[in-house]
């Protein structure tokens, strides 16, 4: 049987040096453009060479691919709305997109809703152990590490440590927990996220399992991914070798540890809310929500919100115009609209100028719905959102408040 687990690196020495872990992803993107496998590449690059200012970029010239080389941990950028809003949902061009697990999941959710043409996309998933907000990161480098943030040339998360490399080549490492105690934490949705390897993308790339080598561990997750990598290997752009069982085991252990960590965190954080009495909970949320200045940032940043005619607009009659804080309906409508499909990407909270912990609210509800409907948002493009479908079996269930529709149906 053909394996789908490989170690890969670029055959080009220059790419190897600029990219992380052997530069496999950079090499693959370059190959795809050079051989017209795709019309464009959507990736993240540094603006003004600052590691704290990452911007998405669409590249059609293979000569410019090097701009996107290397990983960025301080770049919580979402690619989804760009594909949907500015690239016509990939209807007219083939695009290779580098994406974090949450990006890949949101793209799949939008594809289900016919907002993105998934066939035209090649999703290059990047393993993600979480991202920092740029502002937090900058402060962390100067205060916790005592270094000039502008001297930073590389950062890595490994074994619960954040390792930074400086301009002069020296490295410094600090424990993530120690940093958290000082108030420098990853985005809270990342800490709760248990999607570390994006198996819903065409390929999932990362350094876990490379046994310290300058190579990228690639898991191929779709026929499209196989086809692509075979072509790249044949062409010689990418050197691939099947992963050994030790490497597979190493990666598995890393993943399990990270996922367990995230699940424990999720449990802890959301249980706090769950253990509140209903009145306390309402008080908690209303105290946060009444800070809302109704900037519509959460709606505009949300990768899943796509209605042209939005219920939040005053002419729809649900939320009166010109009032701040808005009627609580504002948040309830958002909540009910993303409830079953929220991918916990954290964009809403990132953009919120009033720092309302929105992801916690959405995550809280979504976690319950995942359980009830047995539906993992953004994992399988053929599994439709649970509120948009019903099964024939449900015709024969009489209870009006049945909790477990799916298992009863099976």
């Amino acid at each position: 049987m053909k394996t789908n687990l490989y170690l890969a690196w670029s055959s080009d020495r220059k790419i190897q040096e600029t990219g992380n872990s052997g530069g496999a992803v950079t090499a693959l993107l370059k190959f795809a453009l050079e051989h017209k496998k795709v019309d464009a590449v959507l990736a993240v690059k540094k603006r003004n060479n600052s590691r704290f200012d990452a911007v998405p970029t669409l590249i059609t010239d293979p000569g410019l691919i090097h701009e996107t080389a290397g990983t960025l941990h301080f770049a919580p950028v979402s690619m989804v709305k760009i594909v949907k809003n500015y690239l016509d949902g990939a209807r007219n061009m083939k695009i290779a997109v580098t994406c974090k697990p949450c990006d890949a999941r949101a793209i799949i959710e939008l594809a289900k809703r016919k907002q993105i043409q998934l066939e035209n996309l090649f999703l290059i998933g990047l393993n993600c152990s979480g991202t920092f907000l740029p502002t937090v990161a900058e402060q962390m480098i100067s205060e916790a590490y005592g270094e000039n943030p502008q001297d930073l040339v590389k950062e890595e998360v490994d074994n619960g440590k954040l390792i930074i490399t400086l301009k002069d080549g020296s490295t410094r490492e600090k424990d993530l927990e120690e940093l958290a105690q000082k108030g420098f934490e990853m985005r809270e949705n990342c800490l709760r996220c248990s999607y570390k390897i994006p198996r819903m993308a065409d390929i999932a790339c990362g350094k876990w399992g490379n046994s310290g080598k300058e190579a990228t561990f690639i898991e191929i997750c779709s026929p499209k991914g196989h086809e692509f990598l075979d072509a790249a290997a044949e062409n010689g752009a990418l050197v691939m070798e099947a992963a050994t069982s030790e490497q597979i085991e190493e990666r598995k252990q890393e993943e399990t540890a990270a996922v367990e960590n995230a699940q424990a965190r999720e449990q802890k954080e959301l249980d706090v809310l769950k253990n509140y009495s209903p009145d306390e909970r309402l008080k908690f949320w209303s105290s946060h929500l009444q800070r809302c200045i109704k900037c519509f940032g959460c709606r505009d940043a949300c990768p899943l919100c796509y209605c042209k005619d939005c219920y939040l607009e005053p002419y729809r009659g649900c939320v009166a115009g010109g009032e701040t804080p808005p009627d609580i309906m504002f948040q309830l409508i958002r909540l009910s609209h993303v409830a079953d499909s929220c991918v916990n990407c954290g964009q809403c909270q990132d953009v919120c100028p009033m720092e309302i912990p929105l992801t916690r609210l959405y995550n809280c509800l979504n976690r319950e719905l995942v359980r009830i409907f047995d539906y993992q948002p953004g994992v399988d493009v053929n599994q439709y959102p649970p509120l948009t479908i019903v099964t024939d079996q449900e015709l024969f269930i009489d209870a009006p408040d049945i909790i477990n529709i799916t298992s009863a149906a099976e």
Partner: protein
Amino acid sequence: MSNSFEPKILAFLCNWCSYAGADLAGVSRMQYPPNIRVVRFMCTGRIDPLFILKALTSGVDGVIIAGCHPSECHYGKGNLYTRRRILMTKKLLECIGIDPARLRLEWVAASEGPKFAQVIRDFTEETKKLGLNPLEALTRGEGIK
């Protein structure tokens, strides 16, 4: 004091089964509390969770939705969609701290006049126990006590 509290209840009824059921309860002179206000829908499948939320934030203490029994929907499966949505909405209410018991879904067929009256009696009783809906005070801008 709590005895004098009369909850306001909004009832969303489906045209084909439950509205007829309510009609039957009426013409049969069955007694049930006068706390409900009825909104007739062609199908419970038309009910957007938004309607429920809007009702609850506008000073209604409870929302009851009644539709055809599963497999008896006039349009096939409208009531099944509703069932899923209500599940979600109940969880949503729980999540923000509103007792999900303020929302109830029931199946009432056109022939079930007595059941309709019973359902309304039960629900009114329950809502009475739950008391004033805290969301209303919130939307009036009075905050939570």
